[in-house]
């Protein structure tokens, strides 16, 4: 399967490419109060609102912001919309989906941790909201 690979939280992470709606550049999320610190803000893109999240902070590590990456990965699945800002975008990799579980290995020896939008949403959902 095609897998979209990016770097965040000191790892290579992969999301199945079918969940990627767009790679948007130069997004300027509008910050929203009372949301977890990894929530960077919201953007309006082609008629939809996306919650935009700092991938590094979401995974409990160093922020992905300010690392020169101008792109946000916009995901759409099950009526949900989410933007992820990674440290760096690596690109598309083809991975033999019959052989992967949580970790996949590329030809050049990199280990890619596979995540689903549902995994990301679960982490976000478990965070505290409000005041």
């Amino acid at each position, binding site marked *: 399967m095609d897998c979209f690979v990016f770097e965040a939280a000191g790892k290579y992470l992969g999301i199945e490419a079918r969940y990627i709606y767009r790679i948007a*550049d130069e997004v300027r999320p509008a*910050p929203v*109060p009372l949301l977890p610190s990894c929530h960077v803000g919201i953007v*309006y*893109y082609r008629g939809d609102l996306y*919650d935009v999240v700092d991938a590094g902070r979401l995974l409990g590590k160093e922020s992905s912001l300010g690392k020169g990456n101008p792109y946000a990965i916009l995901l759409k699945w099950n009526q*949900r919309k989410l933007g992820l800002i990674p440290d760096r975008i690596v690109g598309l990799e083809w991975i033999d989906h019959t052989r992967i579980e949580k970790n996949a290995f590329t030809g050049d020896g990199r280990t890619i941790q596979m995540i689903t939008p549902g995994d990301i949403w679960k982490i976000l959902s478990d965070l505290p*909201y*409000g*005041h």
Partner: protein
Amino acid sequence: MDIDKYRKIFIQEAGKYLHELDTNLLRVEKDLPNRDLWSEIHGRIHSIKGMARALSLDTVSGLCHSMEAWCKEFQMGTIGPTADAVQVMMDSTELLKGLVAETAGGSAHADAREIERITALLSKSPEELAHDTPPDSHPVSSPARIDRIPVEYSLVEELLARSQEIILLEKTLPPLSHDQISSGLRSWINRYMSMLRGLHFQLAQLRLMPVHDFVSLFDRTIRDLARKYDREVKLELSGGEIQVDIGLMERLREPFIHLLRNAVAHGIEPPDEREREGKNREGKIVLEAERSGDSLVLKVSDDGRGIDQEAVRRYLKETMGMSDQEIGRLSSEQILNAIVRVDYSSAEETTQLAGRGIGMDVIARAVEYLGGSIAIDSEPSKGTRFVIRLPLSLSIVYAIVFRLGPYTLSVPTAHVASIERRQAASSQPEEALYDLADRLGIHAPAVRPTHTIKLRRRPVQFAVDAIIGNMPLMVMPLGELMARTGSFAGVGIMENGDLSILLDMEKF
């Protein structure tokens, strides 16, 4: 009320369907047993009938109803269509065109004798059709004048997406130094982008209609219902200026017909009875629309006899098999809400006994489909009120947009009593102000607040860093994450494309 507006919509839509009907009849003439085509023909006729009923155009809806009966036979294959039958359908379509044209207020386009002839033909079974109409007597259709362009709603959506794509092109503009770009060109680009954003904002408004336009669709229906049931009824509206997504309103059209019919037929008493009870002879139906948080609340109330709760209890006992104890445990509200249950509402006789007619299931299903809720409140001899709460899918609201800390926030202008500029040495003690910054978790304001905003309905006044302006916002519903805070009413999109978080003032 501007019924003309809805007449125009009817004429436009019916014109489109009639054109499609022509096309399909021409196709089916060459392929008589094609049931799919008959199904399409049926669909167009049904759509015209529905709109005509809403406007109480009885001749049009009656004609459509008769045409539908034939279509059903052809669709099911119980009767084989003939060329004569298709000709009658074509003649009926021409007649419909004339009737629709009359609706536009022009001179009579439909000949009374032709109405009589077609009605007589359609009252027969298609099999009984004799060749009693010589071919040269059929009217020759001439193309209608082109003065409108029907636009699919999906095209509006596509245009919106496309316009935003163009706006996003700005992001791809490479950084150019003063040597590479003249100030004149830079100014031109800025103006161009500003106009594009305005265009996008205006396109988005194609999706909106004010509630009063929706309500005026029913003026004629109420008048006709009042005549039919010998009632005197007037309709009052408040909050008609609220703009609501047309998709939402379309879903509510049929439920509203039922609500109004029930109010007139079963709620409001005959004038003499009202007079005896000391009421005004003229009954009143009030429709109130208001925005509450990220919901649209529609209240439909009448000052009639109210719902007979005893009849509902009897139904629950006799038909639903509930015991006296179980019924006794139900609150008045639960008893009333039982009438919107599908199983209950389909029990025509009982609901009519209870003071409400059939169709409550249609209302309940539509509200459920839209993700809303319905509540009923009724008092004997005082009337009944239905409160329908729906999520606003899209709306335009005027709001005061302001900055507080790193956030761009807004409150609906209707909620604001005043805005005051703060003096350098303000006489107003800080403690008199509601600490909105603290409520929103902003602990280190970067700048000294420049203004205070005082709310209208509640004794709340708070300081803000800067006022951006009073402006229309296209409001989109909250996503799941923002909704969890329980503090926001929606996300507002400004004309320049920037976003603002609309505060739910009920929560502050």
